[in-house]
Every structure is written in structure tokens, then in C-alpha cells.
């Protein structure tokens, strides 16, 4: 067997040892945690809110359900799920990074979201939950940061209830070449500059741009979900494919 440290994996455009990526990703999110929400609004012109709302509307969430928001960061999706599942349901906000979880916890408490949210530090590749626990799992802008994506997809399938669904919201491949090159210019020239100005951290946003480019495109991700065992896998392009929402069911 190979030592996992001698295998390499993408960290943005760089190749790093597999065992190293997790720590490097942690550095990125440690350094942006406090400014994360502001940057999201600035960088996407607020559109990330609509992508997230679209995801919620496709989730089929009902009062009383159990929802897992993995790589949930500062909890945008968790907040909306919490209002919808009501006092009889539960939302678990899980993230590998404690700094992000803390920011999320403070934000949600200030907004009066208490009672039906649980905060868990967890790695998407090895979820610390029992089999068949959740009606819905979402991973928004998180999968591309995960070292072993296939393993994460399988782990999520395991904790999903039969009849439950997984929603993956992630940057993807723009459909139109024109859009694609405008977007490239934006992410490699404008984004890191904005990161420097607003968050004082150009490098993390350089990583962001690179990790987006290295992430599997729509069809590839769909294939990975099917390989993991999801059924009726479909995807919808949002904003011309800059972002895609993948959906799959466990039966």
C-alpha cells in the first residue's frame, strides 16, 4: 500500500501531498472566516444568495425533517432550513473548520436561530453520523475543497435516509465560451485584487479561483455521484453554468 503522503493532489493549480491538502484548505478558511460573508456578497454581487435560495426551493424540505448542511461554513443554508423544518425538525451545521463554525454559530444566534440547530465539527469524507439519519444533505461550495471527493459522496450516501436526497451546489463550467473567458478574467485578475482590498488576503482568493477551475465539470460530477450509488441524478446550470446544482436520491 502506498503512503498517502507520497500521493499528490491538486491544491488549486499546485500539486501537494494528499495528507497536506486538508491543512492547507484549513489555512485558507481560517484566514477568511471573519470576512467570509462580506466577500461572498462582494465577489458574486450578491447572487450567491439566489443560488442558495434556488437550492432550498429544490430541496423538498418540510417541517419536521432532519437536514445536514455539510461544509456549511457560516450557515447561510442552515438558517433557511432551520426556519423551514420548524421546532419538530433538526438541522446539523457541520464543517471541518472550527473558525468558520464559530462565525456561523454567532451569526445564527444573533438572528434568533436557536433550538433546532446543532453544530458539529466534521470531515465530509468520514461523517460521524449513523446510517440513514438525514432526509436532506446539502454541500454548497464545499465539495471542491474536499480532498477525496468520491469518498465524501459515499459517506454522505451512507448517512442519507432511503428516499432522501443530496444537493451539491458548486462552481462549474460556464456553457458559453464568451462567458467562460469573461469569467476567467474576473476570477484571476479581479478576484484576488478584491480579496486583497476587502479581506487583506489575495492568496486565499487566488486559491479560490484555481480550485474552481480544477473542480469536475457538470457531467463528470454527475458521473461521480452515480458511481457513489445515487439515483436519478440530474443537474441544473445556474447563471450560465458558472454554478451548477446537482441532485441525487438514495433509494
Amino acid at each position: 500500500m502506498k503512503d498517502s503522503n507520497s500521493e499528490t493532489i491538486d491544491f488549486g493549480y499546485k500539486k501537494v501531498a494528499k495528507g497536506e491538502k486538508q491543512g492547507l484548505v484549513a489555512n485558507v478558511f481560517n484566514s477568511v472566516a471573519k470576512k467570509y460573508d462580506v466577500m461572498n456578497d462582494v465577489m458574486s454581487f450578491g447572487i450567491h444568495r439566489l443560488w442558495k435560495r434556488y437550492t432550498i426551493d429544490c430541496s423538498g424540505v418540510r417541517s419536521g425533517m432532519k437536514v445536514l448542511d455539510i461544509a456549511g461554513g457560516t450557515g447561510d443554508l442552515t438558517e433557511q432550513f432551520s426556519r423551514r423544518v420548524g421546532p419538530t425538525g433538526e438541522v446539523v451545521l457541520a464543517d471541518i473548520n472550527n473558525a468558520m463554525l464559530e462565525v456561523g454559530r454567532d451569526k445564527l444566534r444573533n438572528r434568533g436561530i436557536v433550538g433546532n440547530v446543532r453544530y458539529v465539527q466534521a470531515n465530509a469524507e468520514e461523517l460521524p453520523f449513523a446510517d440513514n439519519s438525514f432526509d436532506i444533505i446539502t454541500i454548497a461550495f464545499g465539495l471542491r475543497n474536499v480532498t477525496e471527493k468520491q469518498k465524501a459522496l459515499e459517506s454522505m450516501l451512507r448517512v442519507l435516509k432511503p428516499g432522501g436526497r443530496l444537493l451539491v451546489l458548486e462552481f462549474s463550467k460556464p456553457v458559453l465560451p464568451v462567458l467562460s473567458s469573461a469569467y476567467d478574467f474576473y476570477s484571476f485578475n479581479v478576484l484576488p485584487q478584491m480579496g486583497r482590498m476587502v479581506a487583506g488576503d489575495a492568496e486565499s482568493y487566488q486559491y479560490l479561483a484555481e480550485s474552481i477551475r480544477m473542480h469536475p465539470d457538470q457531467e463528470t460530477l454527475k458521473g461521480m455521484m452515480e458511481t457513489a450509488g445515487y439515483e436519478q441524478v440530474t443537474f441544473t446550470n445556474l447563471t450560465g453554468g458558472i454554478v451548477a446544482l446537482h441532485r441525487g436520491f438514495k433509494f
Partner: protein
Amino acid sequence: MLWTVLPTSAIEALLNQLLALDSASRSRLQKLQGKRLRVTLGELGKPLTLTATDQQLLLSWVDQEPVDCHIITRLAVLPELRDSANITRLIKADALDIEGDPMLAQAFSKLIADLDIDWPEQLSQRIGDVPAQFVVQAWQRSQRWLNQRREDQQQWLRDVLIEEQRLAPGQHEFAEFTENVQALRARVDRIEFELKERQRGQ
């Protein structure tokens, strides 16, 4: 995607702001909690789904999950639905189709119809008592002024039509005309009667 999510989110935000202004909304929402209504209007094509949570009303054009009540109709028919006596007639006339619980649709519309917002109170909470009093008085003054203007205009219109242009009859003229018509009708009736009598006599 922008156009399927943005308009409904905007309306939803506005709607919930309004609901929050009436403290009774909370208990009305709680009664509906978890209930879902879908409205498909012929003109719009896209079905609009409303979901009640214990604190908010949610709107979506994207949601395609099952609902408790689905109303399929046209925009023009909506006002008629306020009176439940119309429902059977509208269904028979093919102007309305309801799947599920029809009472639910009315419960949703009551959320809005029963809204009772104390605007002066809301204002004084936001800008303070004195400025609010000032705004309310200014509002009442402008309402009075508007009503006065409207009356003046109607008077002016009457004058022009009746006195100056003689396009329409005045009140007296109209009464006289009506009397004349009635007298004429009476004479016609009498002549008709006499004619029949004569025909019989022949």
C-alpha cells in the same frame, strides 16, 4: 434562474414585512404552519407555490414538490374566489380547477385580507411620536384637500355638461322628460286598449 428566484424573493420579503406589522399575523400563520398552496394562473404559466412556516410566508416559482391545495385558474377569476358561493359555478364553467382542500386557499388569502395595520402607531415607533403626528396630520390634510378637489372637479364637469354644452340634461329637465314619457306610455296603452275593443266589436 435570476428571474425565477429574484422576483419571488422580493415579493416574499415585502409580504413578510407587511405581515410583521400586524401582531395577529403570528397566530394566523401558526394555524397554517407547514401548509402549502399552489396557484397556477393561465396568464403566467409558471405555478407559484406558497408555504406557511410559523413565522413567514414563503413564495417560490421553483418548488415542484407536492402541495395541500392546487388552484388552477385565470387572473381575472381570482377576485370572484373571495365569495365561496361562486366556487361551484366557476368550476362548472371550467374557469376554475381545485385539487385538494379548497378551504386552505381561503385561509391563505385571509392572511392578507385580515391584515389590520395601525399605520400611525407603526410610524411613531419608527420616527417618534411628534414627527409621526406631524406626518399623520399632513396626510389627513392632503386627503381632505384631495377630496375637495375631486368634488370641485365633479361640480365643474356637471356645469360644463349640463349648463354650458347642454350635452346632458339637468335634474329638472330629466324629471320633466320622465313625466312626459310616462304620459306618452299611458296614452299608447289607452289607444291600444281602444283598438282591441273595436276589433272585438266588429
